[in-house]
């Protein structure tokens, strides 16, 4: 299946959870927040939420700012 991760199209195995997606791209789970199709997904649900084709995932973190 194909998902959009931070605006980039990615080919992913079917049945991938958010947690596994973050692992796949070596993203620190404790220092990020995840949005799936514009809905914030609480961290504790990452292992349960399975992605499907055409999903749009945004993963954000803190950066320097004023």
């Amino acid at each position, binding site marked *: 299946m194909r998902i959009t991760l931070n605006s980039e199209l990615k080919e992913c195995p079917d049945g991938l959870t958010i947690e596994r997606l973050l692992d796949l791209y070596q993203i620190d789970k*404790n220092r990020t927040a995840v949005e799936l199709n514009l809905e914030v997904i609480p961290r504790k649900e990452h292992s349960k939420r399975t992605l499907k084709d055409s999903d749009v995932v945004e993963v954000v973190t803190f950066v320097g700012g*004023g």
Partner: protein
Amino acid sequence: MLVAVEIEKRIEDKKLKIGKYEFTSRLFVGTGKYPSMDVMKEALDASGTEVVTVAIRRVKINDTSTLLDYIDTKKYKILPNTAGCYSAEEAIRVAHLAREMGISDMIKLEVLGDERTLLPDPVETVKATQILVKEGFTVLVYTSDDPIIARKLEDAGAMSVMPAGAPIGSGQGILNKNNIRIILESARVPVIVDAGVGTASDVTIAMELGCEGVLLNTGIAHAKDPVLMARAMKLACESGRFAFLSGRIPKRLYAKASSPEKDF
């Protein structure tokens, strides 16, 4: 020795209260645009700040270093901003993501009007404040120095009103002291000058006017020596605060001798 202790006790300031939070330092410092992360870390330390602002952005895939590697979250309260948002809807979305980071329910709400001025959009800012307050956020809100908007934001439940001294990153200082004074007259929540501060005296002026604090970033981060400037800002903030609390002498047009004028 006892006298020294008593003097120190007497000049101890009350804490700055924002919602359920309390701070000793009245200087809030941004984490953007430093020459390096190590310089940022040293500058934050030199500033004595207890509250640091951060922005929310997409992670770079395969880049494992993060800002939080350089910020001790036990030492500093994290204040995420909604910088770069141009509507209430966008700002609320960023605030939700910021809260999901699990570090802070404080949000520095910024809803901008356009890219050239980076001035706030007052209508969208009020709208976003109302919604985020209802959702339980501790909202500190960036606004212009308009006293009426400041009041409306307070009515909407903002825990702190943060008027710009001058446009963001402009380093022009407090351009309209009169408006800041009018805001202060009726404010029931802490007023913190946010943006426009270029150098130490700008911070002092804000504090002498009676502001409860100052938030700045570029003034420190882009100084030739950010660490030294951070210390200057700390001292300026304390100086201005104490000058405000002590009650300055009125300004006079003519001289008034300090030494006795008779009995030579």
